[in-house]
């Protein structure tokens, strides 16, 4: 899967720098699952684009993978002049569905809950 992601991103963005790390083993997924990836992508294609536009461009490129086995993509996008040589690390897993499955009620909440500021 990492190789497939890499091939697609290279074709679409001609990256100056590209890192793809499979972080699936850090998450609550079955052994061997290829579900969580971290991508650091430095490309001239991002110059002048907002963060959301950059992420949307990557999601479009990887739409097929994201609709299938790839569940999480930690995405760090830089134009070449913004790239300082490293991107922040991904956060730890906190359980996901496994942490919560038993408690999930089947009905749909029709109102959102308010959270008090701390």
């Amino acid at each position: 899967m990492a190789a497939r992601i890499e091939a697609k991103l290279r074709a679409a963005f001609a990256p100056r720098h590209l890192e793809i790390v499979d972080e699936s083993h850090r998450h609550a997924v079955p052994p061997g699952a290829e579900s969580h990836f971290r991508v650091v992508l430095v490309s001239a294609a991002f110059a002048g684009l907002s963060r959301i536009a950059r992420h949307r461009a990557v999601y479009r490129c990887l739409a097929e993978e994201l609709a299938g086995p790839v569940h999480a993509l930690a995405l760090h996008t830089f134009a070449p002049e913004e790239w300082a040589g490293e991107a922040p690390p991904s956060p730890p897993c906190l359980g996901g569905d496994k942490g919560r499955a038993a408690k999930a009620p089947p009905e749909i909440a029709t109102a959102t809950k308010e959270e008090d500021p701390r």
Partner: protein
Amino acid sequence: MDIMEIIKQQIEENPVILYMKGSPEAPQCGFSARAVEALIRCGKRFAYVDVLANPEIRANLPKYANWPTFPQLWVKGELIGGSDIIAEMAQTGELQKLIDEAVPE
């Protein structure tokens, strides 16, 4: 009500709304935890929806938003981004400014 209508209404009626896995007190995903921590630090009220407890929203919001993953932060009806974008904006101070503008004192 249709699920897409429910989503639209939630996004339109709440100036700041976070779709996340788990709750602010007990996030169930590191990405959601990082997003909600950044939002709490802004010190303003915000709405949230736990998508693990709301499977229909979890299944349909990505289509509505054309954004495949969670968390998703929406401010004044606009998708701001996911965990990585929220973290970057928190670091630069842009998030505080955005939230302050969206939520009057």
